[in-house]
C-alpha cells in the first residue's frame, strides 16, 4: 500500500526563494519556446503525479468538512470544522495520538541504536559476512502482516508460542506477553522488522567513509572510541537523519502490527488503527478523513521539526570537532 499523502513535501528545507527574473530580451521568446519544448514530454508525468497523489488528498480535505455516515446517506450534510473539533476533543483519538508518538519514538530510537551496532559489526571483514548480512536483512523483507502474525502466534502466544515454550523448558515463569506489556510487545515486533532497514542505511554510510582520514587519526594516536566519536559519527550524521526520518514516516503509519496482535485493545490503538475503526466500523467518512488530515499535518510538523533539531545538533558537533 502506498500512501497518497506522503507526496506532500516533508523535507526540512525552506522552499528556495524565487530567483529574481532577469530582464527579458527579445530573444527570450525563442528561448522560452525551447524551454517548453524540453518540458513538454515531462508534463504528462507531472499531471499524472498530481492526479494520483494530490487530488485524493484534496478530496479528503473536502470530505472531512462533511457529516457523512455511509449507512445514513440521507443525513449527509456540510458540517464545517465540526469533525476537526470532534477529532481534537475525542478522548479515544487523543489517546491514540499519545500511543502513536510513544510507539514511533521508541521503535525508531531503538532500531537506530541496534541498527548502528549491527552495522558496525558488519563493517568488519569476517568469514561468512555476506551470509550474515542476508540473514539480518530477512526480517525487513517479510510482509508486515505476516510478521505480525508470526509474532502473535509463533512467538508470543502463551499456550503454543516459542517464548513460553522455551521458558517452560527452562522452568521459568510463563508471562502473557501481549496482555502484561501490550505496547512493548507490539514495539518489539516492529523493532525486529525495522532494525535491518536502519542497519542497511548506516552500513552504506560506514562503507563510504574516507579510510585515509581514519588511518591518519590512528597514526596520531586516536583510540577506537575517539575515532568513532569524532570521525565516524559525524560522517554518519546524514545517514542517521535519513534513517530516523524515513523510519518515523513509515512507523507512524504502521497498521498491521496493532491490527493483528491486539486489535487496538489495552491502549495499543495508534492513529492509523483508530482511523480504520472510524472508517470501517463506524462508517464515519467525514470523521475518518478529518483524523487523516490531522495525522498528515502532524507528521509534516514532526518530521520538519525533527530534521531541524537533528541537523542543528550535528552542526554544533561539527563546529566543536
Amino acid at each position: 500500500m502506498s500512501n497518497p499523502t506522503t507526496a506532500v513535501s516533508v523535507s526540512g528545507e525552506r522552499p528556495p526563494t524565487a530567483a529574481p527574473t532577469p530582464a527579458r530580451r527579445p530573444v527570450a521568446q525563442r528561448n522560452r519556446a525551447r524551454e517548453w519544448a524540453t518540458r513538454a514530454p515531462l508534463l504528462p508525468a507531472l499531471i499524472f503525479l498530481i492526479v494520483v497523489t494530490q487530488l485524493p488528498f484534496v478530496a479528503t480535505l473536502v470530505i472531512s468538512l462533511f457529516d457523512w455516515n455511509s449507512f445514513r446517506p440521507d443525513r449527509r450534510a456540510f458540517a464545517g470544522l465540526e469533525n476537526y473539533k470532534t477529532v481534537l476533543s475525542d478522548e479515544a483519538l487523543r489517546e491514540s495520538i499519545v500511543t502513536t508518538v510513544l510507539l514511533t519514538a521508541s521503535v525508531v530510537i531503538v532500531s537506530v541504536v541496534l541498527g548502528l551496532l549491527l552495522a558496525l559489526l558488519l563493517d568488519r571483514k569476517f568469514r561468512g559476512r555476506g551470509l550474515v548480512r542476508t540473514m539480518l536483512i530477512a526480517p525487513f523483507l517479510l510482509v508486515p502482516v505476516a510478521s505480525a502474525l508470526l509474532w502473535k502466534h509463533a512467538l508470543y502466544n502463551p499456550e503454543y508460542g516459542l517464548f513460553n515454550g522455551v521458558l517452560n523448558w527452562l522452568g521459568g515463569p510463563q508471562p502473557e506477553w501481549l496482555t502484561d506489556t501490550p505496547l512493548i510487545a507490539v514495539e518489539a515486533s516492529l523493532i525486529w522488522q525495522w532494525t535491518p532497514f536502519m542497519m542497511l542505511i548506516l552500513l552504506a554510510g560506514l562503507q563510504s567513509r574516507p579510510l585515509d582520514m581514519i588511518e591518519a587519526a590512528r597514526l596520531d594516536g586516536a583510540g577506537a572510541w575517539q575515532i568513532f566519536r569524532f570521525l565516524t559519527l559525524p560522517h554518519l550524521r546524514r545517514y542517521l537523519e535519513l534513517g530516523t526520518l524515513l523510519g518515523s514516516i513509515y512507523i507512524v503509519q504502521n497498521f498491521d502490527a496493532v491490527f493483528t496482535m491486539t486489535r487496538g485493545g489495552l491502549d495499543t490503538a495508534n492513529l492509523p488503527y483508530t482511523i480504520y475503526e472510524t472508517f470501517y466500523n463506524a462508517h464515519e467518512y467525514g470523521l475518518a478523513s478529518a483524523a487523516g488530515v490531522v495525522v498528515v499535518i502532524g507528521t509534516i510538523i514532526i518530521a520538519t521539526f525533527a530534521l531541524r533539531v537533528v541537523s542543528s545538533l550535528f552542526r554544533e558537533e561539527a563546529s566543536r570537532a
Partner: protein
Amino acid sequence: MPVLTLRAARIPVVALTAGALLTGCAGMGGGSSGDKTIRVLMVNNPQMVDLQKLTKKYFTKETGITVKFTMMPENEVRDKISQDFANQARQYDVATISNFEVPFYAKNGWLMPLDGYAAKDKAFDQKDVLPSMRQSLTAEDGKLYAEPFYGESSFLMYRKDVLAEKHLKMPERPTWQQVADIAAKVDGSRKGMNGICLRGLPGWGELMAPLTTVVNTFGGTWFTKDWKAQLDSPEFTKATKFYVDLVRKHGEAGAAQSGFAECLNNLTQGKSAMWYDATSAAGSLEAAKSPVKGKIGYVQAPVEKTDSSGWLYTWAWGVQKASRHPDNAWKFISWASSKKYEDLVGKNFGWANVPAGKRSSTYSNPDYRDTAGSFSEETRKAILSAKPRDPGVQPRPTIGIQFVDIPEFADLGTKVAQEISAAIAGKQSVESALKKSQQLAEKVGEEYR
C-alpha cells in the same frame, strides 16, 4: 488500487494515512456488458471460493449467464457494499450481506424484496429454509430481503475423553454454572490444558458475540424496548463478571488477544478442554487431519434464564434494488442457495465443505450426515431454537441475538469489547469497564428515542 474517476461529487474518494487506504468507486457504470452478465460482490470465505470455482462449469453452462465475482475481506466488503448500495450505483447486482445488515439495508431502501421470486420458484423450495434463518432475513415490513448461503449458531464443544477421565458427565442442556464447575475440574487435568476457551479479542464480531449471548441468558440486554441503555444493570454486570471471571480463572492464557482463530488452535493442539463458539468451528475440529478428530462432544449453548442461547449468523445473498438484471440475479441466488448446489460441493470438494446451516434437507442427507454426524444434529437444533426476535427475557428494540441491529453497533460493540477485553487482561475492573461502556451506549440510544 481502485481506479479513480471523478464522476460527480457523490463518489467517495477517501485517502487515509491509515496504511493508506484509497477507496473509490471504480465507476464502471455496470450493466453495459450485455444482458447475460451479473456482478456479484462477496466476502472471501472458503465457501465463496468454492462457489466461484463451480459457477462457470455448472451455472453458466446451464443458463448462459456469466457471473463476474469480486471478493474482499469482511470489513472491506461491508464498506464496499454500503457505498455501492447507498448510492444505488448498480456496480453490483448481488452481494453477500449478513443478517446484521439486512434489516437496516432494507429500511434504507437499498434491497429488492425477494418474496415474489421465492414463491414462484418451486424448485428452490423456500419452505426448506430454516425458519429462524428466514426470520432473521425478513425486515420490519415483513418482506424477505435475502436468501441464506450458509448459516451458523453457537454451541459448546468439549473433550469427551478429558471429561471421562475425571468421571464428569456433560448434561444434555448445561447451565453456565455447570459449565463453570466442569471447567474448574478439568482445568490442568492434563499438562498445559486449561478448562475452557472463550474469546477475549476486542471486536463486535469477536468477544462481543459470545458475551452478548451470555448476557441474554443471564437476563440482561443492551437496550430496553425504548432504547434505554442497560450496560450497567445488575444482569448485564453479573453476566460480564461471570464471563470475565471464568476466562481469567480457568480460561486460556493470553485471553485478551484470543479470538476465534486462537481458540481453534488451542482446541486442536489439546490446550483447552472446552470451547463455546460458532457451530462452524466443528468442521475444522473434525477435519481429516485434525488431531482431536472424534474426541469432541457437542451440546447446546449453555443457558441460565432462557431456553436457548445460541446466536444466529448467516451470509446471505441480497439484490440491489436498482439492479438491471433482477431476474438473472435471482437465477444465480436460486442456484447458489439450492439443495443441488450443496450436492455439487459435496461431490467436488467433500461433504465437510457444504455451505450448511440453512436448509432442513441438508440434515437429512445421508452423505452429509456421514461426514458431519457428530455435530450436524446439534447444529440443526441450535439454529432451529435460535429466536432472533426474542433472544432474552425482555422485549427488544431490534431483531438480533448477539448484536443490536443498528448500524452504530459495529462501532459501539467494538469499543465496549475493548473495555471488557481490558478487564479480562486485569487492567481494570468489570464495573469500570461497564461504566464507560454505558456512557457510550447511552449516546447511541439517545439517537433512537
